[in-house]
């Protein structure tokens, strides 16, 4: 076997991020910060709003939190086209299932469907999704579905390119059994910090609070972010 052919002769960094390298020319990226935290009685989902192609910001106020069913939502990161298509499919399957079973589907089922699509088409997709919502069986729950198509139920989930900058912050600030307001302020704080340091995240912070009684959508304008980089 000729091993020499496998080793590159020189290695040069091409300046692109891992994410951008996988995008087709002109394809939109939701290089992003997304987050979801369950609390007593529901789930808080949050996201930034920047959509970029390379350095050009295609949309500075996009909505990355999509509704899959009455009380099931998902945060999208990765290729905008891929995640929109996935969301549409899962929304369709969930509505069919609700008709067949006669009741609202659970968050677990939504996450399972999303994961099935992500895993079986992993070669052609670039999508990291966080599915969160409320159902009468598990109450508030959050499932993280990163790039490869694994699906893990988590006590909280962060994702997207900006999430790498806030792992330490969220790990230190998170505690079990948060109240709704505590969870909401943690989401806003964390996403602000990520937007401050990640070039692919920015704009406004969109949040959705999902409870048994319904959904509350809010946003924090870009000039009223609670936090910025320290010392500025």
């Amino acid at each position: 076997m000729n091993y020499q052919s496998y080793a590159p002769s020189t290695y040069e960094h091409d300046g692109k991020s891992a994410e951008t390298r996988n995008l087709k020319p002109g394809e939109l990226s939701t290089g992003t910060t997304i987050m979801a935290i369950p609390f007593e009685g529901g789930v808080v989902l949050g996201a930034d709003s920047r959509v970029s192609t390379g350095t050009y910001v295609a949309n500075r106020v996009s909505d990355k939190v999509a509704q899959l069913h009455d009380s099931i939502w998902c945060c999208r990161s990765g290729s905008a086209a891929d995640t929109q298509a996935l969301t549409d499919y899962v929304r369709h399957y969930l509505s069919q299932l609700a008709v067949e079973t006669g009741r609202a589907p659970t968050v677990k089922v939504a996450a399972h469907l999303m994961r099935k699509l992500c895993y079986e088409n992993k070669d052609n997709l670039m999508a990291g999704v966080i599915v969160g919502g409320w159902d009468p069986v598990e109450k508030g729950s959050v499932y993280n579905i990163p790039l490869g198509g694994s699906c893990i139920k988590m006590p909280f989930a962060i994702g997207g390119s900006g999430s790498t900058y806030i792992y330490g912050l969220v790990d230190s600030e998170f505690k079990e059994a948060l109240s709704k307001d505590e969870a909401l302020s943690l989401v806003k704080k964390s996403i602000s910090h990520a937007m401050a340091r990640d070039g692919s995240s920015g704009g406004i912070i969109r949040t959705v609070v999902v409870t048994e009684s319904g959904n509350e959508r809010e946003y924090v304008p870009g000039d009223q972010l609670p936090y910025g980089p320290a010392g500025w």
Partner: protein
Amino acid sequence: MASSGSGYDLSSSTFSPDGRIFQVEYASKAVENAGTALGLKCSNGVVLCVEKPLLNKMLLTNSSRRIHSIDKHSGVAITGFVSDGRQIVNRAREECSNYEETYGTKIPTKVLGDRLASYVHYFTLHGSLRPFGTAALIASYDPETKDHALQMIEPSGVSYQYYACAAGKGRQPARTELEKLNINKPDKAENINVREGVKQLARIIHLLHEDGKDKPFELEMSWLCEESGWEHKGVPRDFIKEAVDWAKKDILETEEYESDEDEEMED
């Protein structure tokens, strides 16, 4: 008895002038000639029971099952053509497994029943296929709603949910007996529990065999209840024996009571 098909009964894709599909009715006849199957939805679980006539003295007992598990949380009892029943059981297993693979959760009771009913119905539509000569009694549990259900699918493809149902040879007297049980009381606490249900079903089966024909038969029983951890399992053999002994004793006592009454009335 039955009106003559006279030409409208050759294919299941032909209606008769009075709006019947004879082939489907004939399929139901096949079920009516077979061993009795009973199902009972109790307050804390579902019990299934099938009477297997032992046609051959050489038969190994407890082989040739009529009751099958289709998933941990559901089981089906079949009566009629046993080989047709195998098809339904296999299809039910596929449905359960596919549903779980697609949606990540156990198939709800009604969805399972509806899908199997659609499957059975399909065979009543095509000219080249014949209907199933089997009735299937499905016991299932939904872990999300914590609800248990009993459904029966007939050869025509109709499926209903029941408190109690019977199919096969002795279904008419069985239904009369089942209606006497406490299964649908408004105060749910009064409804029969599974242990009592097992005994009552054993009694009903033995009641049907009462008239000294003495044909040997085997009793197959299963339950899906709190006691079984909401898993479809065979009722423990020693409990079946206990139930059968109680049943025989109870029948004898009722007979004596009734014959005493008759004697008094002669005066």
